[in-house]
């Protein structure tokens, strides 16, 4: 990704590990406006297409004995459905399409980002912060709508001694508001760090002596990133379920 901006710059060892994350317009130069079609747009559109191909076209035959693609779609469905049901409870099944949307988007954005020269949308805080804030706002609203003022019992730890409860309440309150921060930074940070490290190793490949080591390191990192791509999507989704459980059943 760096070649277009750095083609004519200084020779030798040049590291531009963060250039792959630059948001730029797809057509022409200029500033990135609100509705500008950028590489973000392109890769999000590809993610949408991938979701449609897997979940809609893959299941179009509605076969009782599924094809491979349909099996994967059913596997994804069962995976998230079971997670929602087990972690957040039966009454959280109403939120299943929402959680499925989050999971499908993150998992596809992560895996598409692993294609060389691609753009990883989930490596941007702008994206993950919005995702996390959506979960945070949803969970808070659901908590108050379903439980009213009893939602505040979430911060009042009944199992602790009375004297400790106000202190714990403050800690719980802080941890509650830190949730979207950790929720978003965990995803973007993991994805970004892995991609940046691969880029750094790729930079070392310019030196002939080190290049074999570098190639091996890139391969190893890539393998790790494949794991991270799935695990981070899983972690984001399961944390959403956990927060949802807190909102639906606030008493500890």
């Amino acid at each position: 990704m760096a070649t277009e901006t750095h083609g004519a710059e200084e020779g030798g060892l040049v590291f531009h590990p963060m250039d792959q994350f630059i948001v730029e317009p797809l057509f022409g130069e200029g500033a990135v406006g609100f509705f500008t079609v950028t590489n973000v747009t392109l890769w999000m559109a590809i993610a949408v297409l991938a979701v449609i191909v897997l979940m809609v076209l893959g299941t179009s035959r509605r076969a009782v004995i599924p094809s491979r693609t349909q099996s994967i779609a059913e596997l994804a469905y069962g995976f998230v459905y079971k997670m929602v049901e087990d972690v957040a409870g039966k009454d959280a099944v109403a939120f299943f399409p929402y959680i499925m949307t989050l999971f499908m988007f993150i998992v596809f954005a992560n895996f598409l980002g692993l294609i060389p020269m691609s753009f990883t949308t989930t490596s941007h805080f702008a994206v993950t912060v919005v995702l996390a804030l959506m979960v945070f706002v949803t969970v808070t609203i659901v908590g108050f709508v379903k439980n009213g003022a009893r939602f505040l019992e979430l911060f009042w730890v009944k199992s602790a001694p009375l004297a400790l409860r106000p202190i714990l309440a403050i800690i719980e309150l802080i941890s509650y508001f830190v949730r979207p921060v950790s929720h978003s930074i965990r995803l973007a940070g993991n994805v970004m760090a892995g991609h940046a490290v691969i880029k750094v190793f790729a930079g070392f490949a310019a030196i002939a002596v080190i290049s074999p080591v570098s190639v091996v390191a890139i391969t190893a990192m890539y393998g790790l990133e494949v794991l991270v791509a799935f695990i981070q999507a899983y972690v984001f989704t399961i944390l959403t379920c956990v927060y949802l459980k807190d909102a639906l059943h606030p008493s500890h």
Partner: protein
Amino acid sequence: MATETHAADAANGASAPGMPQLDFSNWGNQIFWLLVTLVVIYFVLSRIALPRIAAVLAERQGTITNDIAAAEDLKAKAVEAEEAYNKALADARAEAQRIIAEAKAEIQADLDAATAKADAEIAARTAEGEKKIAEIRAGAMQSVEEVARDTAAEIVAAMGGKADAKTVAAAVADRMKG
């Protein structure tokens, strides 16, 4: 990082820190496209994909349940058929036993009848034989008596006496008894 910053700045035409992620000038753009993406995925999933997959899974569950039920049915039928077979076998055996007993009884009856007939015949023959023997014996006795009487009368005549037929007969009869 310094060169990079410049590069990023040059590319974006904005003063951003080292990480493009912290270049807030493009956040609006990303957020806008993210929301579009999420809305599209949400509608595709909730309107088309998820109901369809749920239906397929339910249908498969139904098919499996039906197949299991059908298998149970067939199994029950097989057990039934086996019972029927066993019953038929037992019936046939009982029938065979009955026929054997009947035949035996018939044969026995025939045999008894034949035996009885044979016995009766034998008895009749025996009786006839005995009768004949008795006749013959009686005849023989009569002949002996006659001969004895005649002989006695002759002897008496030869002795010079006059044989009274009645007396001779009585004497002979007396002797014959003793």
